């Protein structure tokens, strides 16, 4: 799986990294139970600071998407295990709310937003198969 970062973007690098790893899991490139590269290896490959990768991994851990196990590193958690935990839906819908609000303010209508939402879900599932 290719990870592509834009160091000059307004989005912090660790957030870009987190988003791409989540997308990699959603599309099935990174399967549950698989280990992510070590912090040092990924930082060296990307030529970024180890703290950046570390911050991203901890963010993923906080979201419950990976678990950081001493010695074996960062492992993608099984979907079932993640979905059994409470609070994920609230967190995600809360994060979605300002984006939808902004979409309405800039003049996108409900139909457009719904269409786009379906197309994104379709995209992510398509790559998997």
């Amino acid at each position, binding site marked *: *799986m*290719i*990870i*592509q*970062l*834009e*160091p*000059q973007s307004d989005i912090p690098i660790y957030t870009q990294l987190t988003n791409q790893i989540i997308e*990699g899991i959603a599309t099935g*490139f*990174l399967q549950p139970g698989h280990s*992510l*590269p070590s912090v*040092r*290896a*990924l*930082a*060296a*490959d*990307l*030529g*970024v*600071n*180890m703290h950046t990768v570390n911050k991203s991994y901890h963010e993923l851990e906080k979201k419950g998407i990976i678990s950081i196990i001493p010695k074996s590193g960062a492992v993608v958690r099984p979907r079932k295990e993640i979905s059994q935990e409470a609070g994920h839906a609230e967190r995600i819908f809360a994060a979605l709310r300002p984006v939808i609000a902004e979409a309405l303010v800039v003049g996108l209508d409900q139909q457009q937003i719904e269409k786009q939402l379906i197309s994104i879900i379709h995209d992510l599932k398509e790559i998997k198969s």
Partner: protein
Amino acid sequence: MALTILLITLAFLAMTQTAIPYLVKQTVVFGVSIPEGEAKDDKLAAYKRTYSLLVFSLSALAIVVFWIWTVSGNPAEGQLVLTGTAIQFGIIFLSMALYFYFHGKTAKRKRTEKWGEDLKQVKITDMSARSKDEMLPWYVYLLPIAVTLGVMGYTATQYGALPEQIPTHWGANGKPDAFTAKSPLSVITPLIVLFCMQGMFLGINEATKRSGIKISASRPQASTIRQLTLRKYSSWFMFLVCVLMTMLLAFLQLTTIHEGLADDAVMMILPVVFMLVVLIGSIVFAVKVGTAGHQAGEGPAAQGIRDYDEDDHWKVGLFYFNKNDPSIFVEKRFGVGWTINFANPKGYFLIFGPLLIILLVSYSS
């Protein structure tokens, strides 16, 4: 004999210096990163051509003059070696001077043409590249290290039989020409030096393995092949040098213990064979790495993006300083092989630590 060795090394040096612009990554010209679309620029091609032509013709001229001088003037061996070495430095100095000149010109051309300023700069990595890495594991080095320790042990058992004068240097005729008094330390000094070198090689192998696999955003496939080829062949080449060194030094130690083990012809030819194998090995290495990924790199490159411009981290295009990058070694920008990340102190320890021990041991015995 000395003349043959000198001529071979001079020819080898001239050849490699001439070929460098064509063996490095196509998107780095004289140490300046150039976006994929501009890499085939006519002016840059002319810079490379001029560099190679000048290095080649001036070195060839120096070598021919040197050869005629030795044949007609019949100089003493000391004078011959001195002049040959001076010419080696001359070739290195010439190519460095030309490098700096063209580095400046390339950087200026990039600035005035505003190359890549409208492209989005990205950094990429392939998470699956690490699983394709074919570098040798660290434990293969245990084999030459075991040989060293074995010969050390054998020397200890034969201590009484060793001569009172231990050879420390061998002349071009294969006979020892410098000696030191026998002592428990002096009899194994060469083996301690060998041991340190082996440790250094092992450390470099591991540090290289942990250093980043750098992939180019415009040509991910071709650059992955090149990086993996560079890693694989440098680890093989390093191991080859380590094994050869072990064989040579272990053999010399055995000839010290058992005088007359090898006749003069063998002693004379051995270092030459050693040198030839290393030279041929390095040519194979340079060509393998220099041409790796060329085939995969012929298709269209990714549009609208380019690699993150690291020119600021590369002082004069030669010295890499990046304190964010945990890599200890990175691929050279001008030349085939590796250079150290000067902002990472671990690299200094790895290179200077063993050298310091070697110097200490050599001068204290």
